[in-house]
């Protein structure tokens, strides 16, 4: 089916419809409005809508009325509520604060995002004073909920700094009174029972990398003298068991794992999903490679056309849906984020919102006290481009940092209502762009959506999801609804300290 717009043109009547955008998705036509309501129409239904001939009293008329697609019955209050659901996070200030406690790492990865340093480069460890000054700034964020994420390099290399930062933050929070969470992104290879005991006792949520089956993971993540895959998977199982032993709900409390999709991953979509399921993980985040860190240098080895990524994505998610139909609970994170947005429950994922979260939703504190808009901005700095540097923990106030002209430009540039292409795109209410990516790829924070790999991935994933929704298969819809359910992990909140 192809939309025959030219044939429709003489009969178009644009007096009855409220503002809408449209796109052909599978055999249906998707329409969305400014605030984010949507409807999937057959070509005949779309023709009736476009020509102003939908009969009042029909189910189609009711459906379109319910979703605010007619001018005469447009419910401004309903539109404002939906829009506010999406925008309210903008008013709260930075919630996610990355603390780069060291650049040192004992693994080397083909796509390394972190611009790692060798294990002997102790000068890239964060000092205790820098950690303290960073936390002083973090606690000044107006957001009542703060997450401090320890990153590297490999944060377990600088475990003393991590421990000092946790103790200092908890102490200072007695006056600040924030709801505080700690997370750590680690490759696990330097984990031991003592460190684990400390992390569990201090409710630090753990996240690691698993790229898929052992041969794939070890091929792209080199751990001298050992298998990086074995190190990660051994500790995932051990930690999940420790959560269960502490009486925590095993369906909710598990190690989170992330993967980076390289060219070698593409044919292995089934093995990747199976690896996660076998490890007891309930979520995969199928992320493509991005142009930061080492990927630039190794692009020829790891990069691929985004059509290939989308085919891999469709195969993997189709397979996950099949597994769910057999009772295995596993979800894909990109899908869960977009579906939550479609169903009106925006999860405020910082890279997928308009404006994006860099500077206003998150900040990155480098080991040397430099503060960046986001981790990608920090990585660009390590690659020699300091465009996203906002200040320093010793000389800048919190307000100087978040009101920095670079933050302002990024807020403007990542607002999809100001972007060519996005302004007319059916997916505008659910999508987001990344200024750092645009800057790296196009030389300007605005970028050009139509040539952007981020846009290609976002569009492709949303096309896929709406195509699956458009088949009206109640079992698939039920699975998709379940993927949007978010249960808070309250155990990871630091106990009140006042």
């Amino acid at each position: 089916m192809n939309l025959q717009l030219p044939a429709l043109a003489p009969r178009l009547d644009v007096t009855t419809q409220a503002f809408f955008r449209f796109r052909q998705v599978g055999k249906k036509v998707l329409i969305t409005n400014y605030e984010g309501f949507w409807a999937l129409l057959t070509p005949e239904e779309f023709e009736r809508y476009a020509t102003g001939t939908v009969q009042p009293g029909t189910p189609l008329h009711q459906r379109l009325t319910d979703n605010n697609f007619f001018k005469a019955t447009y419910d401004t209050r309903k539109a404002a509520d939906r829009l506010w659901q999406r925008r309210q996070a903008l008013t709260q200030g930075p919630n996610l604060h990355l603390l780069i406690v060291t650049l040192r790492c004992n693994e080397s990865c083909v796509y390394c995002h972190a611009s790692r340093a060798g294990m002997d480069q102790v000068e890239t460890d964060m000092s205790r004073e820098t950690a303290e000054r960073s936390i002083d700034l973090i606690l000044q964020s107006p957001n009542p909920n703060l997450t401090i994420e320890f990153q590297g390099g490999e944060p377990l290399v600088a475990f003393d700094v991590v421990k000092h930062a946790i103790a200092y933050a908890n102490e200072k929070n007695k006056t600040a009174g924030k709801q505080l969470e700690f997370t750590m992104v680690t490759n696990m290879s330097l984990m031991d029972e003592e460190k684990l005991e400390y992390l569990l006792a201090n409710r630090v949520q753990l996240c690691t990398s698993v790229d898929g089956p052992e041969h794939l993971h070890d091929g792209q993540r080199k751990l001298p003298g050992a298998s990086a895959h074995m190190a990660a998977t051994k500790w995932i199982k051990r930690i999940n068991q420790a959560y269960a032993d502490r009486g925590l709900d095993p369906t909710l409390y598990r190690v989170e794992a992330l993967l980076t999709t390289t060219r070698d991953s593409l044919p292995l979509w089934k093995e990747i999903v199976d690896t996660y399921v076998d490890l007891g993980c309930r979520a995969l985040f199928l992320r493509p490679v991005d142009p930061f860190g080492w990927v630039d240098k190794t692009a020829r080895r790891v990069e691929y056309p985004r059509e290939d990524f989308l085919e891999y994505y469709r195969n993997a998610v189709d397979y996950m849906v099949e597994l769910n139909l057999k009772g295995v609970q596993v979800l894909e994170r990109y899908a869960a984020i977009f579906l939550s947005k479609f169903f009106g429950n925006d999860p405020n994922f910082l890279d997928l919102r308009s404006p994006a979260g860099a500077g206003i939703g998150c900040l990155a504190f480098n080991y040397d006290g430099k503060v960046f808009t986001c981790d990608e901005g920090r990585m660009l700095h390590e690659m020699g481009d300091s465009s996203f540097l906002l200040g320093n923990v010793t000389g800048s106030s919190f307000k100087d940092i978040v009101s920095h002209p670079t933050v302002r430009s990024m807020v403007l540039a990542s607002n999809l209502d100001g972007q060519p292409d996005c302004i007319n795109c059916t997916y505008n209410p659910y999508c987001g762009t990344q200024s750092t990516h645009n800057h790296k790829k196009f030389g300007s924070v605005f970028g050009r959506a139509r040539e952007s790999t981020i846009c290609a991935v976002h569009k492709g994933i949303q096309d896929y999801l709406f195509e699956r929704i458009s088949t009206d298969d109640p079992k698939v819809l039920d699975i998709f609804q379940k993927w949007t359910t978010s249960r808070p992990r309250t155990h990871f909140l630091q106990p009140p300290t006042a």
Partner: protein
Amino acid sequence: MNHTITTQLSNGTATFSVDPSLYPLDALYGAAYIFIDRCFVFLDKDEAGRVVVSLSPKKGPADEPTLQSWAGEFGNELLSCAWRHQISAQNRQVLEQVTSLALAGAMGPPSLDDLSNFDFSSQPLEDPLGIAMSWEEKYKKKTPAAAAGTPAVAAPEAVKP
């Protein structure tokens, strides 16, 4: 055929001429600026009033595919800037509102430190029309001495009995 952008690749330089009636000057500057880390960018005007853009390599000669790709990318960026220029003007209000909301949200309300740093010593705004005065202050009966100093702009009927 009269192209809006015509490209010449000569002497290791890509040269285009752009019809300024199709592209706002701001868009041209915006597009040209993103090339300055890759090449030297020169803007000029020819006799017909078209803007002439030259892109030449910073180091060593550039081959033809590179020059061609600069020229093509310039055209794409120029269109993108021109369209964004138009969208920004049309959506100015919503863009400004969302940006203010986000920045104000990120900064939070003024703190006691902000207030203690505020300069209260400066003179109050001049208020010749008495807009900032209370009704009682502005229209109260004046003593003869005070009435003599009533500024000429005060509403005369208000001071009559």
